[in-house]
């Protein structure tokens, strides 16, 4: 579909780690930390939609927050066009960050309840000088039209809208500062199924019209598969597999990816012959993640070396960008010589 070699990455994530101190333990010196994101590397190319999938607590939203510079990484970097966001001066970051926007999951709390839609949309545009004040009215009408809301609604307050409409306003707000990349943090998981489809279609349509790049974070495969051109699967703060959407669904390599696909009711003809993998046990604590491969505690294929060696992302097939962090299964396929 895309030839990744020719495109320059818009965002490069390098060795990103984000630890949060565990609450209520401020006194001891070696206070425990949650390893929310524990060393991930990937690129986001211009114009693509990178889906990030994983169960709650795997660090996918944390990655989203690092990409829009809401938080500083514990170590590692997020490079925007080659420049590290965490090393940027405050003034420069303030200008740059309009190009990296975010759409939030909870549309109720993402809009100030005391402000009308008009004011919510107007403030950032005026502050950044994106629009002259005499053109403001027209621009707001245009934005509302873009996200499929009647312009007569601009003087309403957020509580007068439905969840889907509020999410449209959230998208309009993100678009108002002319971004190149939007991080969609579970944008539809709080909405009715019928409304989910509308919002997903809106996002796709906006991407075509405005040449946007998306990072689409979700825990359900359906929505991610529908919008993403590439997908990264996360488990306990690590990316375990990353590939173009079709490649990943045709040929999932990592046992966690396989289990994830088996757990979802998607039609996956290639998997039908095989026995379904049902994961046992709970996801281990991210305060003390397992040594070696993080998945070995629940993995059907785990061997002794999995408890010791921390697996890297390895190319699945030469010539493709499909990577998986499971040397055991790759060796079994004969395509990787461990």
């Amino acid at each position, binding site marked *: 579909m895309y030839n990744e070699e020719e495109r320059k990455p818009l965002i490069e994530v390098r060795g990103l780690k984000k630890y949060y101190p565990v609450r209520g333990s401020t006194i001891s010196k070696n206070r425990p930390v949650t390893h929310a994101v524990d060393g991930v590397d990937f690129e986001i190319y211009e114009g693509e939609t990178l889906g990030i999938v994983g169960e709650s607590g795997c660090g996918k939203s944390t990655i989203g927050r690092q990409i829009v510079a*809401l938080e500083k990484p514990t170590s590692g970097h997020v490079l925007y066009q080659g420049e590290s966001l965490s090393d940027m001066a405050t003034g420069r970051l303030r200008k740059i960050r309009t190009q990296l926007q975010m759409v*939030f999951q909870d549309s109720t709390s*993402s809009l100030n309840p005391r402000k009308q839609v008009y004011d919510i949309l107007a403030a950032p545009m005026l502050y950044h000088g994106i629009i002259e004040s005499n053109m403001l009215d027209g621009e707001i009408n245009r934005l509302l039209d873009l996200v499929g809301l009647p312009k007569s609604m601009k003087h309403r307050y957020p509580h007068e809208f439905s969840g889907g409409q509020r999410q449209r306003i959230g998208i309009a*707000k993100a678009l108002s500062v002319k971004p190149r990349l939007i991080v969609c943090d579970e944008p539809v998981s709080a909405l009715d199924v019928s409304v989910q489809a509308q919002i997903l279609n809106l996002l796709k349509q906006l991407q075509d019209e405005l040449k946007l790049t998306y990072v689409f974070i979700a825990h359900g495969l359906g929505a991610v598969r529908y919008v993403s051109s590439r997908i990264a699967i996360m488990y306990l703060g690590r990316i375990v597999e990353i590939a173009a959407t079709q490649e990943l669904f045709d040929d999932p390599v990592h046992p966690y990816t396989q289990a994830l696909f088996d757990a979802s009711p998607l039609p996956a003809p290639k998997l039908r012959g095989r026995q379904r993998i049902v994961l046992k046990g709970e996801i281990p604590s991210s305060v003390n993640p397992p040594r070696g491969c993080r998945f070995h505690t629940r993995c059907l294929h785990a061997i002794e070396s999995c408890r010791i060696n921390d697996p890297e992302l390895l190319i699945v097939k030469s010539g493709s960008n499909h990577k998986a962090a499971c040397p055991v299964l790759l060796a079994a396929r004969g395509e990787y010589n461990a």
Partner: protein
Amino acid sequence: MSKSGSSENKKSTFGMVIKRFKKHKLAVVSLYFLSIMTILALLAPIISPYDPNQVSTAFSSPPSLAHWFGTDQIGRDMFSRLLYATRISLFVGFAATVISTVIGVILGLVAGYFGGVVDIIIMRITDTIMSFPYILLVLVAAAIFGPGLWNIILILGFVDWPGAARLVRGNVLSLRETNFVKGNVVAGMPNRYILFSEILPNTIGPVLVYATSVFAISILDEAALSFLGMGVQPPTASLGNILNGAESITILTSKFWLWVPAGVLIILLVVSINFVGDALRDAIDPSAKE
């Protein structure tokens, strides 16, 4: 066109608050009472039949047609003095509330939003002030700086802010985590915009409710200090120093007009302010319907 739509909607939100406020009958009555007292206090120079400090020949005379509330020991008209006393007491309460609320809101906003060392310093100062016995602190401050109208206002204003600061800080801490604040950070909006245009309007409600209780407490404190002679100094009349005249047992037992009206007035003012505050709390609660 846009303007009319905007004002219509603002009115409806405001109208909702009024509608909910009106459900509290006592609060509505209290609000009328407070409004009347405020108007009387403001118009005291016009309404009062006598100069409040003018001495007449009738000493401690009981209520009569000439002196509706009688006269005090040195022959001053009690009705005029009560009007002026209300004026002073309301002014002290109001000014002290404004000062303490402004200080509390600013410190609370800064502490909550910036966190870290700034937060620790501000909150430890707050804790320190709150750990002193309140009335003792006020008395000592009054003794150091001397009694007087403006000293009392400043002392009360500088002693009452910790409550407001804590309240605002708590609100800011939770608002800082909301998506609309994060969304504005992501949109590259400056801190002053986020603080004053996004966070502050969402804390105004609780602050307003808190301020009404500070207002009531300030009136009581002024009365207490003036009663003890550390507050507003005679001949200026305040509700507290009128009560000061009732220290002797003969006045308490036989000259009720010298202390009952002032005492009743203090009670009514404080009670009605608290009623209004309670109703306000319910009326501006955004989660309440209708």
